[in-house]
């Protein structure tokens, strides 16, 4: 039985393609520092949210420990870059250390609690994540505590590095963009994110992805057909932890700073949840749309809200709620409404529209 894709799903894929193209040419399209920050953050969060979608959307497990794994990868690279100095060895070693730690903890949590109810698992991951956050701020000789760690990236990514030089030995400009280390750093983020996203896309298209969907739809039946549900769930939990950890390493290399705010805090977990629900659970395209929308909103919506707060400054309470710091209030309400009325998010809802005969 083969079905023609709906117009909606073609539309969603076109939007995703557009986002991918915009990210690919971001340094040339938007030539200011802030936009490049936004583009890199979008790349990282697409991977992070997609790996979370493997859990929540494809297997129906709710974990609150995803930032913990993200943080392991980030802190792994950050600590080694700080101690060993800039270079590729600390990035690779730190990334591997982050993966190893993530795997050990994911296996432990998975085997301990994935056989029980979804709600139990959610609570246990929440507790584990909060312990990780407290440990990071208390082991300050290693992690820098609340202040975090600042370090240098490998030499290739330093702004002073000349990738291409013109005849006079100056940095070559292509379309007005200087080919320096910053460009190299951005394309490092873009390409590694693209590879990770491609791998996940391959995973959900494989027979394994079909088994995962079967578990989500009817756990008892999947078990009865002979699939070992606990083993599959633990496996997916590990895969998503590893991808999150790698995303953390990439982000640490890009930011040249790692602290609780950027890598471990519960706010990031909330961002991930918002992105996956707004974008759409259970499809890999949802995270792309959700992450893009939310990161852009994070950077630009606040300005808009500030203006709105000024405009209504005479009304009581409203200015307080329109304060740029209160933007989560509105996103929270949007989140609740989406879960009620469009549980499949933007991508999931759009892909059902426009059935072709």
């Amino acid at each position, binding site marked *: 039985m083969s079905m023609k894709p709906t117009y909606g799903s073609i539309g969603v894929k076109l939007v995703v393609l557009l986002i991918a193209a915009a990210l690919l040419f971001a340094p040339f399209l938007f030539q200011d520092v802030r936009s490049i920050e936004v583009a890199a953050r979008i790349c990282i969060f697409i991977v992070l949210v997609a790996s979370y979608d493997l859990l929540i959307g494809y297997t129906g497990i709710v974990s609150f420990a995803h930032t913990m794994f993200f943080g392991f990868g980030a802190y792994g690279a950050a600590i080694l870059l700080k101690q060993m100095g800039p270079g590729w060895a600390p990035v690779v070693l730190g990334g591997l250390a982050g993966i190893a730690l993530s795997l050990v903890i994911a296996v432990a949590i998975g085997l301990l609690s994935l056989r029980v109810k979804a709600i139990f698992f959610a609570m246990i991951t929440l507790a584990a994540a909060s312990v990780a956050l407290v440990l990071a701020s208390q082991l300050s000789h290693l992690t820098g505590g609340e202040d975090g760690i600042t370090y240098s990236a490998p030499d290739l990514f330093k702004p002073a590095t000349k990738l291409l030089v013109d005849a006079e030995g100056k940095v070559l400009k292509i379309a007005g963009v200087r080919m320096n280390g910053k460009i190299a750093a951005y394309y490092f983020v873009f390409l590694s994110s693209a590879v990770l996203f491609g791998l996940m896309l391959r995973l959900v298209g494989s027979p394994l992805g079909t088994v995962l969907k079967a578990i989500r739809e009817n756990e008892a039946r999947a078990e009865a057909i002979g699939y070992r549900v606990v083993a599959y769930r633990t496996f997916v939990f590990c895969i998503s932890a590893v991808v999150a950890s790698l995303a953390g390493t990439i982000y640490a290399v890009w930011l040249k700073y790692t602290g609780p705010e950027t890598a471990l805090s*519960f706010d990031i977990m909330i961002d991930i949840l918002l992105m996956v629900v707004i974008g759409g659970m259970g499809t890999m395209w949802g995270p792309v749309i959700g992450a893009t929308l939310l990161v852009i909103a994070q950077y630009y919506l606040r300005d808009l809200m500030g203006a709105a707060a000024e405009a209504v400054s005479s009304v009581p309470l409203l200015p307080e709620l329109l304060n740029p710091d209160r933007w989560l209030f509105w996103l929270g309400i949007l989140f609740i409404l989406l879960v009620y009325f469009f549980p499949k998010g933007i991508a999931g809802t759009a892909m059902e529209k426009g059935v072709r005969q």
Partner: protein
Amino acid sequence: MKGFGMTRWIEKMGGVNLLPVAVMLVGFVLIGAPSSWVTLTVAGLAMGMMVFLMASGLSLVFGLMDVLNFGHSAFVSFGAFVAASVLAGLSGWLGAPSVLLNVAALALALAAALAFGLAAGLFFERVIIKPVYKDHLRQILITMGALIVSEQIILALWGGTPITVHRPAFLEGAWIIGDISIEIYRGFAFALGLVVFAGLYFTLNRTRLGLLIRAGVENREMVEALGFRIDRLFVGVFMLGSALAALGGAMWAGYLTLITPALGGEMMIVVFIVVIIGGLGSIEGTLLGALMVGLVSNYVGFLAPKLALASNMILMMAILMWRPSGLRPAVK
């Protein structure tokens, strides 16, 4: 069969109910100094009772409705801030030499927190949770969303800066017995928790209402088939649970004396650990879990301060490996 005899003896003496006593004994051996041990034990029991107030509602609601409210900590925060505001408004009464005025101010503050909890619980159950009964994934997401919104409302109303909580004068200070000093507020918190526990225990085990609630936990369909409006019972239990959480938050605010909007989120982890340790759905289990968590965090906080939060986690892991569904679960 010596080991078997020992097990039977322990069961006869109270079984898992003895665990807090065992924790106290281990604490006594490790700490050594009796006066510090007494102070820490009282602090632990008081903290345990306040955590019990916050956690009992969560556990009951889960047991009865199979709903886990991730937004439960919002009630704790709101309770704390509402009580703090009432106390600040009545600061004249608090400082007054008359104990009667002191008590009146405290009673008003706690009543305000309770009333708020009841009202917010009603709203929460009707608007947020009712549409997503029996759908765990959406329940977790919706209640999490409600938590985000509630935290933002607290930030908008009270701001992000820490707020000082005024305690009534008659609860300030400490009782001094020999070289042991016991803060009066801790004694009060313990007593209040005990009264609430006794009330809940009596209601659940000795009244017709309690019988219906327990029957609902055991088998919802059967109780409905017998003609009881179990959904009304649910709303009542949910409101009660929210009110208790708000009361716990109010007491906790007085204990901390300096509160920030992060208070609810911080307590939520402890509350979850307590509920998991105790076993979902039973208030006896919740009390056991709360007392153990309170004692362990105070002892470890004294012996090895850096391990304080991790200690709760380790306690939870250990108990889950021993009893995967908690100490005294009511839900199968």
